[in-house]
C-alpha cells in the first residue's frame, strides 16, 4: 500500500474502569472500502467515533492524510459520519438536513443548491426536498443521512451500520448502490457492520473485531479461506472443527491423530509443532458425502440426522462418534439424489481444504 490515508496506531479507549479498545493498529488506503466487523459491543462504534473526533482515544495516535488528529475537534476533521441512529434533525426538512453542513462552507446560493440537488439525485430522494424529517420512512431517513454526509465531499466517509434498519430487499439494493457510489466518488469508506455477509459483499478489506481487539485484518477471501483463529472462522460463515493431535510434519503437510475421528492431514501452519493439540477446520462446502467405505485419512463415518433440500444444494447434518457437535456438509445438487435420514455415510475432504487452528 502506498501512503495510507488513515493510520491508527496503538489506539486504546477506556470508559472508567472498562476498556473498550485495546491497542488498535490499522492502516486504511485511499479510496478503500474498509469494514469493521464484529459482534455487538466489540467496540466498532467506539473506533468510528474516535475517527470522527466525537471521542478521543485514551492513548495512541491517529493520522488522517498525514495530519495528527488527536485533539482536533470533529468540525475540523476531513471525515463525515452516517450515524447508527441516522441523527436526522427533526426540526428541519430534507433539503435543510442535507444542506446543514454546507452552510458553514460559505458557498454561493447557486452552488449550494446545485450540490444539494446532486446529493438528492444521488440517493434518489427526488421530489422529497421539502418533506419534513419526521414524515420520512426508515429507508428515506437513511438516504438523507447518507446524502447529508456525502454532500460535504469528505476524504473519509464513516458509516455506522447504515443498513441495519432496512428490510432485506432494500438492504441488498442499497449495498449495491453504496458500492457503486464509493467507486465513482473515490471516497474512502469506513463501514461498520455486524453482518458478515454484508461485509464480504462490500469490502476491499475487513477488520474482524472482538472484545475491543482486532482478531484479523484481511481481504474477504483471505478471511474466509484462512481464518486466523476459531472465533473468526465461526463468525465468518460456518466451520466444522475436529480436535486432533499433530503426529508428524513433513513436506508442508501435517499428519494428525483425531482419536475416534481417525487420522487426518492438513496443510502446514505457522507455529504448529509435533504433539500440539489443534483444531482441524473444514468448511461445510469442502466436505463431501459418500457411501460408507473403509476408514482412512480425512474420512469420518457418520449418520444422516437431517438433510435440508435447497434446490441447488443440499445441507446435511451428520452425527459422528467422538464429536459432540454435528458435522455440517453442503453438497451441490448434481444428481438429484439425496441420502435419506438415518443413512450411514462417510464424510470426506481434501487435505488442501482443511486448515489447522491453534486458538
Amino acid at each position: 500500500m502506498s501512503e495510507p490515508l488513515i493510520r491508527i496506531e496503538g489506539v486504546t479507549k477506556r470508559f472508567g474502569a472498562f476498556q473498550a479498545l485495546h491497542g488498535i493498529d490499522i492502516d486504511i488506503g485511499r479510496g478503500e472500502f474498509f469494514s469493521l466487523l464484529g459482534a455487538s459491543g466489540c467496540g466498532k462504534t467506539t473506533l468510528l467515533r474516535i475517527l470522527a473526533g466525537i471521542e478521543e482515544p485514551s492513548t495512541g495516535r491517529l493520522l488522517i492524510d498525514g495530519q495528527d488528529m488527536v485533539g482536533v475537534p470533529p468540525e475540523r476533521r476531513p471525515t463525515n459520519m452516517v450515524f447508527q441512529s441516522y441523527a436526522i434533525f427533526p426540526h428541519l426538512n430534507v433539503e435543510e438536513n442535507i444542506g446543514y453542513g454546507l452552510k458553514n462552507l460559505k458557498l454561493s446560493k447557486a452552488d449550494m443548491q446545485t450540490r444539494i440537488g446532486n446529493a438528492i439525485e444521488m440517493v434518489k430522494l427526488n421530489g422529497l426536498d421539502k418533506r419534513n424529517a419526521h414524515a420520512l420512512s426508515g429507508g428515506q431517513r437513511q438516504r438523507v443521512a447518507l446524502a447529508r454526509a456525502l454532500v460535504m465531499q469528505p476524504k473519509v466517509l464513516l458509516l455506522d451500520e447504515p443498513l441495519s434498519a432496512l428490510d432485506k430487499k432494500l438492504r441488498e439494493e442499497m449495498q449495491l448502490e453504496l458500492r457503486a457510489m464509493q467507486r465513482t466518488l473515490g471516497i474512502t469508506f469506513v463501514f461498520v457492520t455486524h453482518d458478515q455477509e454484508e461485509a464480504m459483499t462490500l469490502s476491499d478489506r475487513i477488520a474482524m473485531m472482538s472484545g475491543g481487539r482486532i482478531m484479523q485484518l484481511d481481504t474477504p477471501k483471505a478471511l474466509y479461506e484462512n481464518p486466523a483463529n476459531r472465533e473468526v472462522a465461526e463468525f465468518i460463515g460456518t466451520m466444522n472443527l475436529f480436535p486432533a493431535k499433530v503426529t508428524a510434519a513433513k513436506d508442508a503437510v501435517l499428519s494428525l491423530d483425531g482419536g475416534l475421528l481417525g487420522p487426518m492431514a492438513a496443510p502446514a501452519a505457522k507455529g504448529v509443532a509435533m504433539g500440539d493439540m489443534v483444531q482441524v477446520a473444514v468448511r461445510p462446502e469442502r466436505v463431501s458425502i459418500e457411501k460408507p467405505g473403509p476408514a482412512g485419512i480425512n474420512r469420518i463415518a457418520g449418520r444422516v440426522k437431517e438433510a435440508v433440500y435447497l434446490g441447488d444444494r443440499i445441507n446435511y447434518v451428520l452425527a459422528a462418534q467422538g464429536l459432540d457437535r454435528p458435522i455440517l456438509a453442503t453438497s451441490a445438487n448434481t444428481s438429484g439424489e439425496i441420502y435419506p435420514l438415518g443413512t450411514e455415510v462417510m464424510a470426506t475432504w481434501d487435505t488442501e481444504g482443511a486448515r489447522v487452528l491453534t486458538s
Partner: protein
Amino acid sequence: MKKGWGLTVYAVLFVAFVYGPVLILPLFSFNDNTFATFPLTGFTTRHYVDMLGQRQMIASLMNSLRIGLAVTVLATAIAIPAAISITRYRFPGKPAVLSMLMLPLVVPSIVLAVALLVIILRFLGLPLSLWTVAAGHVLVALPFCVSVLISRLEGFDQSLEEASRDLGCSPMQTFRRVTLPLAMPGVISSLLLGFIISFDEFVIAFFLTGTENTLPVYLYSQLRFPNKLPGTLALGSVILVVSTVLVITAEVIRKRGVQTDNPGDY
C-alpha cells in the same frame, strides 16, 4: 360500570374541593355587594371599574409583572447552561450539583426568606428593594426551570448534536442551530413557569421588599379594609384567568414538542 361509581364520586369531590374555593373568587367579584357573603345580591361589573381606579393596586401589579419578567428571563438564562451541563457532560460531583440546584424546592420559603434577609442586610449591606425580591425569586424559580429544561434536553437524541459537530459546526453554532431550536418548547415552558412562580410568591416578597410592594403583598395589606375587598376579588379573578391561560399554553407547547420528536417512530 359498578366499579366506576366509586371513582366517579371521588373525582367529583376532588374537583369540587380543589376548584370550588377558587371559583368563589370570580363569583363574588360580580356580586353587587361590598361584603363577600351569601346570598348573592345581584350582578355588577362595578368592582372591575373600581379596580382600575385603585392606583396603588395597579402600581403593585406593575411591580409584580416587571419582577416576574426579569426573574423568568434571568432564571431561564441560568437554567439553560445548567441543564445542558447536567444532561450532556460527565463531571465529578454531578449528583451533588443537581441536588444543590433542587434544594430550594424543599427548603421552606420562610427559612429561605430569613436567610436571604440576613445575607442582604448584614453581609452585602444592600438596601431592600424590588431587586432583592427578584433575586430571591430567581432562587426559588431556578429548580423548576432547570427540571423543565432537563426533561426536555433528555428527550432528544444526543447524536443530533454530535452530527452537527461532525458536519462542521462549532459547539456554539451547534447550540444555536440544533440544541436551542429543539429545546425551545422547554425554554418557553420554563419562561412561563418562572413568571408564574415569581408572580404569586408571597413570603420572600414580604420579607425582602423595600418601600414598593408586589401584588400579593399589597393584596394582603389591603385585607384589613373591607371596602377594598371587591376590587381585590376582581383583580384576583383576572389573574386567575390569565395564569390559567398561561399554564395551559405552556402545557400545550410542551406536548406539541414531544409529538414532533417522535413521529410515530420505530
